[in-house]
């Protein structure tokens, strides 16, 4: 037996080279978002990218079931979408449904971080670890002496807001309170803002109004990937930061004269001298 002849090798090489050259343009068009639609020829498509924080959430796009998040899969890329508005629903038992009409543009991907807020917030009274039970089971959040002192200290310190101004900063984001309205601001002038500042991938803003209704807000802070704001009427609201209609918003606590602080990442509310922890 002889080694492969030069003619055979040339033939193989030619076949492979031909296939390669024929397939390359198709692959590049596909990768760039072009799809062939019967009757329309090549159409530029876009995509959606959804990040869901919890497992067990059902995702549908335009009424079609996309999938249910699990331990490994918490994000979905949905490609091959024509330009225009696409309706996205994410639902999970015990959480408020998340719905958004996301605008898709050709060859671009619209991304969204889904914020799932529980139907009911968990409210527990803060007590010291060593404190004796008074017969009522549950509803208590036991903390160390050290943490308790920090919480008390946080409430005793003067709140740095009144009329307005920047009330909280997280990374390149700032929360601004102005005339009782709460807005989120992207601080970097020379860098594009994240996707939730964009109504569509190519139409972005640098300021999102979180609360601009008739209510007057007196305090605000970043928390759990969203924002908290306290209304004058004592309503503590948690809202999603997103320029696209309509962000999720939920009332976490209501008591006239209540104040809130975030200590060690936890939300605490002081209501008539009583301190409670509010959580999901």
């Amino acid at each position, binding site marked *: 037996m002889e*080694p492969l002849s030069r003619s055979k090798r040339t033939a193989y*090489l030619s076949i492979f080279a031909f*296939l390669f050259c024929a397939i*390359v343009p198709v*692959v590049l068009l596909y990768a760039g978002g072009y799809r062939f639609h019967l009757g329309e020829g090549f159409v530029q498509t876009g995509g959606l990218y959804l990040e869901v924080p919890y497992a067990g959430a059902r995702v549908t796009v335009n009424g079609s079931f996309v999938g249910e998040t699990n331990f490994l899969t918490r994000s979905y890329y949905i490609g091959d979408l024509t330009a225009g508005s696409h309706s996205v629903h994410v639902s999970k038992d015990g959480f408020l449904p998340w719905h958004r009409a996301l605008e898709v543009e050709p*060859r*671009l*991907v619209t991304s969204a971080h889904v914020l799932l807020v529980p139907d009911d917030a968990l409210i527990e009274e803060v007590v010291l670890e060593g404190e004796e039970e008074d017969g009522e089971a549950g509803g208590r959040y036991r903390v160390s002496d050290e943490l308790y002192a920090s919480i008390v200290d946080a409430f005793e310190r003067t709140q740095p807001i009144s009329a307005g101004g920047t009330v909280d900063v997280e990374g390149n984001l700032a929360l601004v309170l102005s005339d009782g309205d709460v807005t989120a601001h992207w601080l970097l002038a020379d860098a594009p803002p994240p996707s939730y500042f964009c109504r569509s991938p190519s139409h972005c803003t640098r300021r999102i109004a979180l609360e601009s209704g008739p209510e007057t807000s007196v305090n605000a802070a970043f928390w759990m990937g969203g924002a908290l704001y306290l209304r004058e009427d004592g309503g503590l609201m948690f809202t999603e930061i997103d320029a696209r209609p309509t962000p999720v918003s939920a009332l976490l606590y209501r008591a006239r004269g209540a104040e809130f602080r975030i200590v060690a990442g936890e939300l605490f509310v002081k209501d008539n001298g009583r301190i409670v922890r509010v959580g999901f």
Partner: protein
Amino acid sequence: MEQSKRYAEASAAKENAARDPYWYLHVARATDLSGRDRTLYRAFEMLPGALSIATLAALVLLALLYPTIAAYFTIVFAMYWLFKVGFLSIHLRHNMRRLRHNMSLDWNARLSGLKHEKIVHLVLFPFSSEPYEVVEGSIRAILEAKWDPKRIAVVLSVEARAGEEQVRVARRIQETYGSRFLDFLVTVHPDGLPGELPGKGANLSHAAEAARVGFLDARRIDYRNVLVSAFDIDTVVYPHYFGCLTWYFLTAERPYQSSFQPVPLFNNNIWQAPMLARVIAYSSTFWQMIQQERPEKLATFSSHATPFVALLKVGYWQRNVVSEDSRIFWNLFVRHDGEYRVVPVAYPVSMDANAAPGFRQTVANLYRQHRRWTYGVENVAYILFAFMHNRKIPRALKVRAVLVQIEGFWSLVTHPLILFAVGWMPLIVGGSAFGASVLSYSLPVVAKFFLTAAMFGLVASAAYSILLVPKRPEEFGVLRSVALVAQWLLVPLTLVAFSAIPGFESQLRLMTGRYLGFWITPKTRVQLIPKPALKPHG
């Protein structure tokens, strides 16, 4: 002043050329030269490393400045990789058929119509600190081959620095088996000879010269009838090796202008070797099998055979290089003005897979071994320099040889790094505008598709490796056989860790003048398998 210096250099070069037209034949590195030649050789040494760095840097820069173009490039490159795997798999498949066909033939019968009676096989075994049983296994395999041992002479060439104990090992082998051969020489290669790099090349040359004086001349054997097999100490021949080699020699178009390359298997200890060592061993074998089907790209590698007269013409193996196995081909190619080739002998010899007692040591040994192999990149400078001084070699031949060599070492380093690292840079440094494009989401999906499809080529390789493996020893269960297939999942890792990275280190060393010395792969075989089985075709 400068002009007179240049004049002096030019005069010296002319004198060199007049004295010996092949004066450059044994140049090993830039430091062997002076003046303009040294500068030029140094530039040639830097070329492969510079090319690899430039390629990778250009891609990083492209990812930073034009991430979209970089992403398209990565996709096309992944596709190219798939097609390349497919194209090379055809060569591998054909060589496997040829190998099995050759294994099934009675080569002694095939020789019946040829005048082969005067052919003498000289087998050179340079060795250092390998144990008795390793040496004995190789010698016994020769005795058990289907070839009259009285037409075989063996030289055991012990490195003096290995100590007296190793000389005793050689003597013991000689006493036990020597009388069964035409001749059996034991020689000691002195340590620290001027102009030598301690290593296999120097020892092989010492062994060849010892054989010429102590055996060929003493017995008045015509050099033209002598075929030299330069083996590693662990090389185990298959039964028809000598018959097959003789046939290829006698039927070669230009037998004295040809070297003969068997297929190197690493089967001796394959069942004992860890998974990583196995997959790397078979990868090396498969690459050699592919090259066997592309003879114009084939250079000698590891265990190979050469007519004695050709070796004598170039002063045997170069004594001052690391990669003596491939360098001997280029010495011969240049000395014969391009009229020299390697004949692919699709017949196996078996060596040890690189396996140490512990996993960490195995990994370290594998890395060092591959660094030594990829240090063959030192041939690029040699070829360019020699081609520049040899005007008799046809220009087209020079261009092709240089391109094949440069592309080989360039792709060895850059391709795995592009596929598994640099190619994905646009996703990291592409910025938010690129990050919001469909392309940025398509890149991992499409590129992964092609790379996964290329894995199917590896699945085929897994099937071939099963055909090459000797029968499973009883002490190993079925799981070991399963692992033989599963091992191919390690290929992406081995491509980067034991090919690209040691290759890159070799090129950087050469580039910066931190030349590599010879490193002997330790042979720590747990148990010798004297006759690796290969199922013949049909």
